């Protein structure tokens, strides 16, 4: 038991170090391929954990979910099958959104009683003292704030920052990332604070800190305030008021609109998609200080991406959602669920074509991204037509690598600031900065 706790703690600390290290690399050559690989790996571990929770084997709904983003405990579990991961809410919404993936078997009903293997079940069966231990606190707070999902949210915000057609400023980038990360931690903590009895009843979420009594609700709220207030202040004062306002609005949208709406109407999915779309917009406004068409396009791409991602994920979680009282399209309007997923896969193709029109990328972007967009649309069509577990899983897994790849391709096709400079758009001082953004 002690060994597991140790590993758990060290694991959590490793991630921020790795992340900081990668940001250093990023400074030299902005976002590199390694960075995206890291994201993919994080996606994978995140999902693997969720997967190993059940024999069957998401994240939560949205983006967040995606959520989900679960804990390190599960890494030790033996069950592993897959590869991809989810979100966030992904980003935020995703995060909240489903992050699990279930092993598809026709006899799903029998497996209700399967319990996660490993240290978790042993600890589960014992009575624990409700006393906060300080050395457990970092791990607990990491889980409370859904740190991995937060990291994904921050990376989409960084993508927004990187795509903005201005010279790269390191301090602004770091402040925006930190502010966004803190805001995301706050939102996720409040979400967990609201959902304790529901989380207890769903397999994916039953090991959260508040559910297990590792932390009191008061502390969760204080932590959320301690992250949210400095986070938004940092964005408003250290970056610009527009980004701060967007951050505050997103926290509000996620905690006060999306979370209660999950139990009232299927409209929650659309709200959650907006929650996931805002971080890249925040990244863009942090860099440029204004809401351009480019910001809205990036937001639009993330908005559309949420639907195939979440709808495919939620297809396998229908039992838990039904019992838990969550109003999700996959349960109440299955036809709509699949139609919307397909519709937005196709929208991604359209949005990718609009990018060069708005001068954000060159015309190579729609060309290069067409294969991956067509592939996800094909899987979306299969999901629409077949409406079964295997097609939903395929679509879900595809969405996991589709987004990082799309953003990476978008970045490599970014319209060079130098080209604009030659036309006399930028002041000469930024010439050396502009050199940094020179694409490979």
């Amino acid at each position, binding site marked *: 038991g002690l060994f597991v706790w140790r590993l758990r703690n060290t694991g959590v600390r490793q991630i921020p170090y790795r992340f900081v290290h990668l940001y250093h690399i990023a400074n030299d050559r902005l976002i590199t391929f390694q960075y995206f690989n890291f994201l993919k790996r994080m996606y994978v571990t995140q999902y693997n954990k969720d997967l190993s929770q059940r024999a069957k084997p998401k994240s939560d709904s949205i983006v967040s979910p995606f959520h989900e983003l679960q804990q390190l405990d599960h890494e030790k579990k033996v069950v592993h099958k897959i590869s991809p991961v989810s979100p966030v809410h992904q980003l935020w919404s995703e995060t909240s959104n489903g992050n699990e993936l279930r092993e*598809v078997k*026709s*006899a*799903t*009903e*029998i497996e209700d009683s399967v319990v996660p293997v490993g240290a978790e079940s042993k600890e*589960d*069966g*014992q*009575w*624990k*003292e*409700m*006393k906060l231990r300080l050395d457990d606190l970092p791990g607990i707070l990491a889980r409370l704030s859904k740190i991995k999902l937060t990291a994904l949210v921050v990376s989409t915000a960084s993508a927004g920052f990187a795509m903005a057609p201005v010279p790269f400023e390191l301090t602004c980038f770091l402040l925006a990332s930190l502010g966004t990360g803190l805001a995301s931690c706050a939102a996720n903590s409040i979400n967990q*604070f*609201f959902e*304790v*009895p529901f989380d*207890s*009843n769903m397999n994916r979420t*039953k090991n959260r800190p508040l*559910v*297990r*009594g590792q932390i*009191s*609700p*008061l502390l969760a*709220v204080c932590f959320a305030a301690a992250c949210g207030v400095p986070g938004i202040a940092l964005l408003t004062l250290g970056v610009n008021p527009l980004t701060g306002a967007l951050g505050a609005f997103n926290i509000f949208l996620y905690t006060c609109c999306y979370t*209660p709406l999950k*139990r*009232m109407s299927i409209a929650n999915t659309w709200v959650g998609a907006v929650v996931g779309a805002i971080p890249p917009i925040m990244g863009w406004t942090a860099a440029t200080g204004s809401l351009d068409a480019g910001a809205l396009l990036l937001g639009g791409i993330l908005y559309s991406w949420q639907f195939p991602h979440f709808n495919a994920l939620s297809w*396998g979680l*229908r*039992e838990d*959602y*039904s*019992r838990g*009282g969550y*109003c999700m399209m996959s*349960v*109440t309007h*299955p036809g709509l669920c699949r139609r919307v997923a397909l519709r937005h896969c196709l929208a991604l193709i359209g949005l990718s074509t609009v990018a060069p029109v708005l001068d954000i990328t060159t015309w190579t972007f729609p060309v290069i991204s067409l294969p991956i967009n067509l592939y996800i649309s094909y899987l979306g069509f299969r999901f629409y037509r077949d*409406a*079964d*577990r295997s097609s939903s899983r395929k679509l879900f897994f595809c969405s996991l690598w589709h987004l990082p790849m799309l953003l990476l391709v978008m970045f490599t096709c970014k319209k060079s600031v130098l080209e604009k400079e030659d036309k006399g758009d930028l002041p000469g001082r930024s010439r050396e900065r502009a050199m940094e953004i020179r694409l490979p």
Partner: protein
Amino acid sequence: PPAHSRSDWIGPPDKHSNLRPVVFYVPPEESALERRLREARQEAQASNQRFWARHNRAFRQEKEEFIYSRLKAKGLEMRDESGQKATLNAEEMADFYKDFLSKNFKKHLQYNRDWYKRNFRITFLMGQVALVRALRWLRRRKKNVEQ
């Protein structure tokens, strides 16, 4: 939980409600405020337990009935030759899930309202208790420093 302990203890998830029961420690010098907090938490725990135990039991029962009726319609038995329980696949169960969710919709709305109210009240009381304790501690420290 051991008798000498001075803190609350939380146990494994309940079989029916999936909620973890808490045994609350009653300190001998409990103030009125602390008592209000403890009672609010106990009441919320009992109410949650009642709701979810009943709800989950209803779910399991209705699910069994649904599976039984569908199997009968198909002309199958509940258990096949090897003694394994026969089941329906996810697509067939989807009708049941949709139905169950809409049947319990109003119940969930009511429960949500109750839960949010209780949660806010308990957290607010916790804040008050923490504040009072902090002030008491500060006052004691000041007295020690003066002595």
